[in-house]
């Protein structure tokens, strides 16, 4: 059922993490859009509306929080789930992410099975 495939957008600047996430998503039957910084992501979002965005927090130039703010200001993207990914996992970091309003937070290194399960949970809910 190729038409029912859900689309996940990956915003990640670190090449190996990007490759891992893309391959993992494709292996699990998702369409994947990807870009390596916040500006690119916002450009891409003006043309495409994914079902879920995996957004790295530590991005160059425009960080994940700023990208998230822009996304939440865009009414076209109201239904899009946004999940933060970060290797900053101190309590303060996580609290800041939760407080910003993201749908979820996934710490790095990612647990591959856990990540897929979380994405599926968000997309079925």
């Amino acid at each position, binding site marked *: 059922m190729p038409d029912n495939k859900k689309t996940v957008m990956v915003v990640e600047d*670190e090449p*190996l*993490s990007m490759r*891992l996430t893309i*391959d*993992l998503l494709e*292996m699990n039957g998702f369409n994947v859009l990807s870009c390596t910084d916040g500006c690119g992501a916002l450009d891409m979002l003006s043309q495409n509306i994914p079902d879920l965005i995996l957004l790295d927090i*530590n991005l160059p130039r425009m960080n994940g929080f700023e990208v998230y703010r822009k996304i939440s200001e865009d009414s076209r993207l109201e239904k899009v789930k946004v999940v933060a990914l970060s*290797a*900053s*996992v*101190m309590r303060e970091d996580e609290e800041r992410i939760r407080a910003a309003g993201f749908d979820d937070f996934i*710490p*790095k*290194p*990612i*647990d*591959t*099975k856990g990540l897929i399960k979380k994405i599926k949970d968000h997309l079925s809910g």
Partner: protein
Amino acid sequence: MSGHGLEIQYEDLVENANSIILRMDMKGNVTYFNRYAEDFFGYRREEIIGKNVVGTIVAPTDTSGRDLKAMMDDMALHPSSYVNNENENVQRNGTRVWIAWTNKSILDEDGRVREIFCIGNNITRLKQAEEEILKAKEAAESANKAKSSFLANMSHELRTPLNAIIGFSELIKEEGVGPLNEKQKEYIDYIHESGKHLLSLINDILDLSKIESGKMVLEPGDFDLKSLLEKSLVFIKEKAAKHGIALSTGIEEGVGVIRADERKVKQVVFNLLSNSMKFTPDGGKIGITARKSGDKEISVCVWDTGIGIEEKDRGRVFSEFEQIDSEYSRKYAGTGLGMPLSRKFIELHGGRMWFESEGKGKGSRFCFTLPLSVGQP
């Protein structure tokens, strides 16, 4: 003794006191200056009487830039606010000194403040010591801040490559990219386990440093301890079966819902069980017992028939980065931080942790207590 004689005696007292004693009028002009003040500040009284304190023993501004001229003006207006006052003064040769002053208003017949009577003691050395302590405290605080931010950065930087190591090895391990032969399966397991091991090291180091800096806080909640203990055994079930190790539980009546930090208790139990797994030879036994002791505490023990702890190693069990060497310890050694961390988690709850072992080859028992409700005596 006549009244006049008494006056002379008091004058003598003031004159010879081992404190700075002076009087000034409301403009700040000196009207009296005792001998000690002469020696201390380096002015003879005939030189200073009639002169203003600002410009002689008071510099217009102190070393930190505080406006002392304004302070003197204010003192003339509100003498009662300056009964006890510490400020910087200056000796004739320019040396800055700190004086603790007690200032008393002298009233005329109409009850108006006419002069201020000042007694001063040199506290320069005290002030210097205070400043040094303050500097040392600031240095210690900034070193501590640097350490915290170093740890946070280290944690972040190590997680990025670990993401690739753990993630890609998981994909290969699951044979999502093609079937593996036996050797490949074995090797990829090593890579994956080693990556996970590194990750737990990083997490343990962060936890320990949080405990040491007093930043570790408990997140207490109500949970069923009995079910937590039973579920923990499930995690090692598979591995135990592989090594022919029998598992057992002995959880008594009365062990149920407690109030504690569930995540940390889980981590402690899991750590004890994996230690037992590591040090118990094939065909042995591992068990958990728990019972209520008294009406405020639960005690939990994890026991095994493993290699036990020799007398000479007893002191090292709860030390950081220590591991008891053993031919039995299984493929993946622990971080060496599990035991000290576990004990600290239990102590944060107000509980105790200890172990019992009758010696080499006789197995061991690790026990801890937890209050039924954390934070309540």
